[in-house]
């Protein structure tokens, strides 16, 4: 069972702590959103989990292995796939199939051709395997990134503001694809948008590098005061409910637009 244990970590780039006394545990097949405004330490946390930044205070265990153990860092990275924000900054090979094979080659996996074919097929890019990645469209580039991550068959998937360069429909499509491909994996999404965290199983709210809430989307995202404290805009339905409340109209708590529609429909 994939697991990440973040144990009282603090991290600084030199001036003040970016992350401060942060602890949480994530395990099993679930989707966790780490929500926070810009500068709340979300991306730093992703880099620390993958051992991309040196951790000095506290510890992080990935599948029981400490990221401080330099000898095991390869094992940790093999079990984690990260999809960063800007796909153009992540392509390393001139041909898509080679870019997809980059991870499996680094981990010296076998049957790389089959792995590449399977991965590209899973994201409907089989016909694009000979293409130069930079010439793909925005959505295709994101799918190419997913194929590269899929190829290493990770236990844990970290999405660091991935797909944020797409429009709403494109992002929803990618979220659905990720949910479909990795339903048996531990997925951790980093986001600054509360609306994007609605469909996860659990939301961890960061503010100024500290954990200020950890619970179900309904517990965290319906709490306007908590979100304001973290400088995060509440989800659309929650904002509408707040506006109505300010005008003296009270409706039951809602989280999704579907629920809001239902409540407004029955409001008459």
């Amino acid at each position, binding site marked *: 069972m994939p697991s990440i244990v973040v144990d009282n970590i603090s991290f600084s780039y030199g001036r003040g702590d970016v992350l401060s006394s942060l602890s949480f545990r994530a395990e099993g097949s679930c989707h966790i959103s780490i929500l926070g405004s810009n500068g709340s330490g979300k991306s730093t946390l992703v880099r620390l989990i993958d051992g991309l930044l040196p951790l000095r205070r506290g510890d992080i265990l990935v599948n029981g292995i400490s990221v401080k153990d330099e000898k095991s860092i390869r094992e940790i990275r093999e079990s984690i796939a990260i999809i*960063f924000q800007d796909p153009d900054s992540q392509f*390393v*090979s*001139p041909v898509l199939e080679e870019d997809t094979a980059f991870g499996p080659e*680094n981990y010296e996996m076998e049957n790389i051709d089959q792995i590449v074919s399977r991965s590209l097929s899973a994201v409907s890019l089989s016909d694009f395997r000979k293409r130069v990645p930079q*010439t793909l469209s925005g959505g295709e580039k994101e799918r190419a990134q997913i194929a590269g991550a899929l190829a290493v068959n990770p236990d844990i998937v970290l999405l660091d503001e991935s797909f944020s360069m797409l429009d709403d429909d494109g992002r929803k499509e990618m979220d659905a694809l990720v949910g479909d491909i990795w339903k048996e994996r531990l997925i951790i999404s980093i986001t600054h948008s509360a609306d994007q965290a609605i469909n996860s199983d659990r939301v961890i709210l960061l503010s100024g590098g500290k954990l200020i809430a950890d619970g179900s989307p309904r517990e965290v995202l319906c709490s306007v005061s908590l979100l304001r404290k973290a400088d995060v805009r509440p989800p659309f339905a929650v904002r509408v409910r707040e506006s109505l409340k300010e005008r003296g109209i009270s409706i039951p708590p809602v989280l999704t637009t579907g629920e809001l529609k239902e409540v407004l429909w029955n409001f008459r």
Partner: protein
Amino acid sequence: MELIGAYKPGTSPLHRMDNTARIVSFSMLFAAFLIASGSILGYVFSVAVLLVLYRTGSIPIRPVLHSMKRFRMFFITIFLMNAFFQPSENPFFSWWILTFSIDGIMFGLRMVLSVILLTSLAALLTAVATPLEITDGLRTLLHPLSFLHIPVDQASSIISIAISFIPVLAAEGENITLSALSRGAFPGGRKLKDKAMSLIPLTVPLFLSAFRRADELSFAMEARGYNGSIKRRVKLSFGLNEAVSVFISLSILIAAILLKGVSIVGS
């Protein structure tokens, strides 16, 4: 105006070729053009081959030739260098190390024609293949050198990453320029110094952006377990199209060698 070296997307057989097979074919064609140069028959042969190749690649040749006007000073220099330094028994005049003769003029013209033919062939290669595809082809071709511990993979990775970043940085440079213009910056005056000074505010953000991207790329590569010592797979998709192309190129090379032989025997 058409740019020599610009990639033109398409679906022609030359576009669809395997990257390595394309480099092999074009290398043979370059060799054929070099061998065939020197005789009128050889030039006619090379021009005919070039026209057929442009037609096969669905690339119009007229704009390419038109854009060569910009290199006229270069061609004139090549002509003069060869026309005045070619030794001859019947010169029009001779002074110091300079000799001007009909042989020199003919030699100069032949050199200019050869350069135009080779440039046109190179323009065709860059029109049907992106820089990354060319790099990929070269990497596969040079792969055997990695067994001699020559870091072909690392070198080609560096080159292909650098090439792939050019359009990204060019787009960012354009955005930075537009942003500066929208905030009241004016392009420098006519003097070179003024122009250079006006570039400074654009250079700093562009460098910062390049460093940020390099940082992101290094994180992405490390996250995917990058290991410089790994020998990368080399995959050659050698189908019928590639076999036919290499065969035709080889035939052209042999024909050029035969033509050269005929012209030597004839003279």
